[in-house]
């Protein structure tokens, strides 16, 4: 070799580099994500371990303790049936989080697959896909939800499907537009010069690079889904009471705002915190991904 070897100056690229590169490390270093963890972490922790807490069951009524304001015995107070609101809120978080994540996951997976095919192959597939998404986007999303809930009946699964039905076209669009911009990247060309297959291009080059922005969108979709579920509950189409989804809790208590503010306000604060946490999370992911913010 006539070329001298160029070795990396040690002070610039420490061995931590690879670890840092692994993404997780960088994510954890982001202040927004730390904030998101600070908000979501305790809520999730309490939710997961709520059965170990000294709390009455979320459905357990107590006619001796009806409509009590927050106190040491009932940190969030009780509702009109004497049920402990903290316990119900934590159970609600579990349900709402499930709805949120299920919706996000569903939208993500379907959007990823359909959007990739549509954007990558273009042509007839693309046009049909776009026409279909057009139709779904032209639908008021609430009607989509109402229709689906009516067909499938109420409950967790129909609600998840109903909410994701209006998210999916958006995800398809998002993925498609990213695929379109990635499709002409030089590294795709490089792979094409060695006759890489379409599947190879999609799975190795396109999807890994679109996952992260999709995750950002998904975490917002999760936050939205939690709120939409609350709206559906208000119209009597969400998760059915007494299952204490956060939407149900807020709805149950909203007519008691004057008499017993805590019934709907405290679960409302929790829903807000979750939504804010998810937004911080998406902001954080975005920041970590955006090369400009890395400067």
């Amino acid at each position, binding site marked *: *070799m006539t070329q001298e*070897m*160029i070795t990396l*100056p040690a*002070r610039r690229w420490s061995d931590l580099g*690879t670890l840092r590169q692994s993404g997780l490390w960088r994510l954890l270093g982001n202040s927004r994500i730390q904030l998101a963890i600070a908000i979501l972490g305790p809520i999730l922790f309490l939710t997961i371990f709520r059965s170990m807490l000294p709390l009455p069951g979320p459905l357990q009524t107590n006619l001796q303790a009806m409509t009590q304001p927050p106190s040491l015995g009932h940190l969030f107070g009780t509702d009109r049936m004497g049920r402990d609101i903290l316990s119900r809120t934590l159970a609600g978080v579990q349900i709402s989080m499930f709805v949120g994540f299920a919706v996000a996951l569903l939208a993500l997976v379907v959007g990823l697959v359909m959007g990739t095919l549509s954007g990558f192959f273009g042509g007839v597939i693309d046009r049909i896909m776009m026409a279909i998404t057009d139709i779904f986007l032209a639908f008021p999303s609430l009607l989509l939800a109402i229709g689906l809930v009516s067909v499938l009946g109420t409950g967790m699964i129909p609600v998840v499907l109903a909410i994701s039905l209006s998210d999916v076209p958006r995800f398809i669009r998002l993925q498609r537009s990213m695929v379109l911009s990635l499709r002409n990247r030089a*590294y795709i*060309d490089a792979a094409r*010069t*060695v006759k890489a297959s379409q599947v190879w291009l999609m799975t190795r080059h396109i999807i890994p690079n679109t996952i992260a922005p999709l995750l950002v969108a998904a975490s917002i979709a999760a936050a939205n889904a939690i709120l939409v579920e609350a709206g559906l509950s208000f119209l009597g189409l969400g998760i059915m009471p007494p299952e204490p989804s956060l939407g149900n809790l807020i709805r149950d208590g909203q007519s008691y705002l004057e008499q017993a503010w805590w019934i709907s306000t405290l679960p409302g604060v929790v829903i807000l915190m979750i939504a804010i946490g998810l937004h911080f999370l998406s902001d954080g992911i975005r920041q970590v991904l955006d090369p400009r913010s890395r400067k």
Partner: protein
Amino acid sequence: MNFLRPIQALNASPTGQTSLLEVRDLHTHFLTDGGTVKAVNGVSFEIERGERIAIVGESGSGKSAMAMSLLRLLAYPGKVVAGQINLNGRDLNRMSERQLNHIRGREVGTIFQDPMSSLDPVMKIADQMIPPIMRHLDMNSEKARAEAIGWLDRVGIPDAGRRIDAYPFEMSGGMRQRVMIAMALSGRPKLMIADEPTTALDVTIQAQIVELLKELTSETGAGMIFITHDLGLVARFAHKVGVMYAGKLVEFGPVKDIFARPCHPYTQSLLDTIPPVDQAERRKLAQIPGFPPDMKLPLVGCAFKDRCAAAHERCFVEAPDLTLRGPGHRAACWKPEGLGEARRKDAELVPPMTHSEEDRVVVEVFNLHKHFTGRSVLPWKVPPTVRAVNGISLNIREGETLGIVGESGCGKSTVARLLLGLDPATSGDIYVDGMAQMVFQDPASSFNPKMMLADIIQEPLVVTGWGNRMERAARTRELLAQVGLDESYMSRYPNQLSGGQRQRIAIARALALKPSVVVADEPTSALDVSVRAQIINLMVDLKRQLRVSFVFISHDLLTVSYISDKIAVMYLGEVVEYGAADEVFRNPAHPYTQALIAAVPVPDPVAEEARMKKPLSGELPSPLDLPSGCAFASRCPRATDHCRAEKPLLQAYSKSREAACHYAN
């Protein structure tokens, strides 16, 4: 131009001995989350009336930050933290924003790098130009409009009265930069700051703009600070040069002095990295090892010490200050001669390659066409067709390098894509013996950011099912070694690499399948001068060792002529001159080639002074409606009616050269 008079009158007035601009110990910091970047770290210089000063340096040297600091145009988190900026004796750094706004545009005009983004895209030229004139020169709108049209006319905008109502997007890059110049001059400033004003432009347009700036500033008597990384431009343009490295001026002095007797090792190295115009024998280009220091970290000693062959103990302890080396010539180095004897150490001779007619032809292209047809929804409308490649024929032998040059839009990149089979040709034949691989221009988008380098290099192997895992890993190590990188790179990711390292990886990937030809599309144009030399040296070595052929596409004529055996000059989808590199470069036959070469600035102020200064006029016509005759006729100084009527064909000019001009002989 009667409106030029007041400035000259002002300049003529006896304002005493103070310089036009005097910068003293300027410090600019960027307060990022990751720490404070000391971008400008104590810069001092002065500029006299009517003087043109060039500030050169590589990216990250702080030259742009310094220029923007002068008028406090830095965006957050940039901040001027200390220093004096005395313009005609008043310290701009102590002025309020409001006071400064009377200086900006009025006393100091600014031209920015990218004409495509420097004008507001949604406002007409008139709306961007006229209000500042009204404000600074206290004119009513009609007078200001007339003034603006006058300036547009002056900077060479044809039909200025009408074009003033155009939007920027309706103009070419060159035209927009002219508009920028007109805007900057319209306040009749005493000082112009031009931040890489020609970097984004084609070489012919660059020559036009440089001439224009030179002419106008000398006419108005304005001083000028010209930020650039192109030493050739400096030689052509500047009275004085400042060389910046790591936020400091390391050398400052009259241009001829600096080029003839550079004192700082960095200046010396920079000058040596440029391919010499003299092609008699090819020597390896000088290259500067290592990286510039991290400006966030505290610096002890000379900033250049890690990369300096002449560094000694003192350099590690104490930073040198600028000291006088000649009349007005200062340098910041402990050694009086800089590198001194060590300077030419690298420059070993490149043994010439032997080519013969027996070498197998690896690429043969015959009458290649590529037309892009738009889509028309209305069936009765004929869709517009762009003839990007319009009948070219080329061939490349084993181990040979073909350089393709031309302005942007001439079709050279399309040829590359056709050679690689990325796009189907409209007609014509491409024959490739073996495989064609590619090195791309933009190192940032060349790699999947989610893949490790080992996977990137191995990708062609995996896709084609070459070898097993062990064999592929071995091949990867071999390839890394060939491009001068060690094994530790295998587990890294693209964003951990510098631009030069990325191009090495790109070359390694291209070589993985042992292709017969590597197509390199502007592989060095995004790189700094010193790194560019490394990549060129690498390619020259590989070509010799592996006898792989290269197609080297670039607008940088000096580099192309240095690396190529043959050159094809393209204009509007056609080859207008084709032949041995040395011959084409030294004795161009086609008027277009001649103009291109004339436009290339040579890093030698003495030679530059002697060169023809009339740049090629006009711009590349639209490829949508090609003329029936010679495509170049519209810009050709020698064009006749015959040229406009009849298309010249590529025909033998000499034994080893062809040209497409009726008057080439």
